[in-house]
């Protein structure tokens, strides 16, 4: 396993995925300290936010939901050798946004993709022409069938000169190792691009799935401090680094990450969100995207979990963005 881990890179997603818990309202002071501390911990990439918002409009979205040039310049100055990552939904950005990200020193642009592959590839071409590394993040991958994934990967492979990485993002937190291994095989057999994995821990499998992804050929791993991310959250960065050390891979400083955790916990914008734990568990178990949370919340308030499961059964075949209504908190 150590030999496999030696090839892997960590992408911290705290400022981005963690933003779902605080309306993306991390302070500039925190963001600066965050990138410095994670660089010192040896983390390879830090994703610093969304460009121009998430998949759905969010009222009064904060700094890490917009990634303005001013914000990026601040971070670049604070940690000049850190590889900064920005993620975007193509519907939210124009070519001029991509060029500005490149001018601000963003190393890796990640583009969310699900059913909008053609327009996403067009934007990838812009990013590549600006000299950026480009990743296609296939979101809600647990809802994509094998045949559909094969078709996507085939098209991605045909455009591989525009790309560096293809990600499987378990946005719903639904995958188990066996399912993930099948998806990984499909991607690995269809493309020579590097592969990344983004875990959500809704059913407690973020660590197991990430280890599976590495064994199946992934070389990019997403994680966040304390797992701070949408819903139950992501793979915990500190646990992943501790795991790496247990396998004899000691590139990362656990001590530095633990100091970063202490700083995060003391920040007023840190949100240890667990008051909707039951909803997130069910969403993960039922493979429901965040857009279905409203219904789950309502049903949970009046029915037993078994009834919720029965009532939500059709959503298992969910494949689009669905209704944009949100209840309780923000999500992606």
């Amino acid at each position: 396993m150590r030999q496999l881990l030696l090839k892997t890179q960590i992408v911290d997603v705290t400022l981005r995925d963690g933003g779902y818990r605080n309306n993306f309202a991390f302070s500039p002071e925190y963001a600066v300290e965050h990138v410095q501390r994670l660089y010192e911990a040896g983390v390879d990439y830090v994703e610093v936010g969304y460009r121009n918002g998430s998949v759905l409009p969010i009222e009064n979205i904060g700094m890490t939901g917009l990634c303005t040039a001013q914000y990026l310049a601040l971070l670049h100055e604070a940690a000049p050798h850190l590889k900064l990552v920005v993620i975007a939904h193509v519907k939210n950005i124009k070519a001029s946004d991509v060029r500005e990200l490149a001018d601000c020193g963003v190393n890796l642009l990640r583009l969310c993709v699900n059913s909008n592959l053609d327009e996403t590839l067009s934007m990838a071409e812009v990013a590549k022409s600006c000299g950026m590394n480009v990743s296609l993040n296939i979101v809600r991958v647990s809802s994509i069938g094998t045949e559909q994934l094969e078709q996507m990967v085939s098209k991605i492979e045909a455009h591989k000169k525009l790309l560096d990485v293809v990600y499987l993002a378990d946005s719903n937190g639904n995958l188990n190792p066996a399912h993930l291994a099948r998806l990984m095989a499909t991607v690995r057999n269809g493309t020579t691009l590097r592969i990344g994995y983004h875990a959500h821990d809704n059913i407690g499998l973020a660590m197991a799935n990430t280890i599976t992804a590495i064994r199946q050929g992934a070389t990019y791993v997403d994680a966040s401090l304390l797992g701070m991310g949408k819903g139950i959250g992501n793979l915990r960065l500190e646990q992943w680094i501790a795991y790496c050390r247990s396998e004899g891979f000691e590139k990362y400083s656990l001590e530095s990450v633990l100091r970063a955790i202490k700083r995060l916990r003391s920040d007023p914008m840190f949100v240890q969100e667990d008051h909707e734990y039951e909803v997130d568990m069910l969403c993960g178990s039922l493979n429901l995207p965040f857009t279905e949370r409203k219904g789950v919340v309502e049903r949970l308030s009046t029915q037993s979990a078994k009834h919720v499961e029965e009532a939500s059964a059709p959503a298992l075949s969910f494949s689009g963005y669905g209704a944009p209504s949100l209840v309780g908190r923000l999500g992606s």
Partner: protein
Amino acid sequence: MSEPWLLLGDGEAARAVILGPVSPSFDDGAFCSVLSDALVGRGFGVLIVDTPAIVESLASARGLAHVVEGLAERLRGPASGASLLAGYALGGTLAVKLARYLPQVPRILSISGPGFVDAALRRGLAPLMSALEAGQLGHALRLLAESVAPLGQAPGAQHRDAFGSESGLGELAVRRMLAGFRLLFELDARAEAASYEGELLGLVGELSQLATAENQAFTPGPHRRLVSVPGAGMRVLRDDPEFAMRAIEAWLET
């Protein structure tokens, strides 16, 4: 000197290589004499490398991004068969970086070598870089002496770099130092340290202002030993040569 290095001891091949720190001129190995003497006493041929001379030459010819690769090429001949690759300050960082290119070397010793440039080191070196970029060599050397002395202590003779005022040499000194520090700002040796299969020893001064336990390329563990030299600054071999050499000798015996 036709080559930017010095070979000490018997034997045609060096069994130990010591990469020097950023300095205005090569001091013929005085910076590490306590170490090189000990290694020669053990029967090692010791190659002491004027690192800034090679770095400056490679940076001018190929650009900073290719310096490490170029250095590996330059050393591949003289360092073939070496059983110890050591370095001081920038040289220590480079010794770890070279692990990728010289994987057969079973031991790497980094003396006050930052593994990467953290925020504290960047702040510490900023005034020095500004002075060098302004061509103020005298001021830069004073700042360097203050930076390598233990925290809170005035620099002594062992922290100052002797440098004459011969015509033309000042410009060369500035070029050497600028190239060396600019390279240091680009280096991150953590991946190389993680993949290195041999024995690693890092020495840092307890009161060092630049290379610290926090910015090393590795954390202590099996095959990775990090020793803090009590009361020392960057120049551990001069601030406390007995302690530093005891640590090195003990490590060489393992």
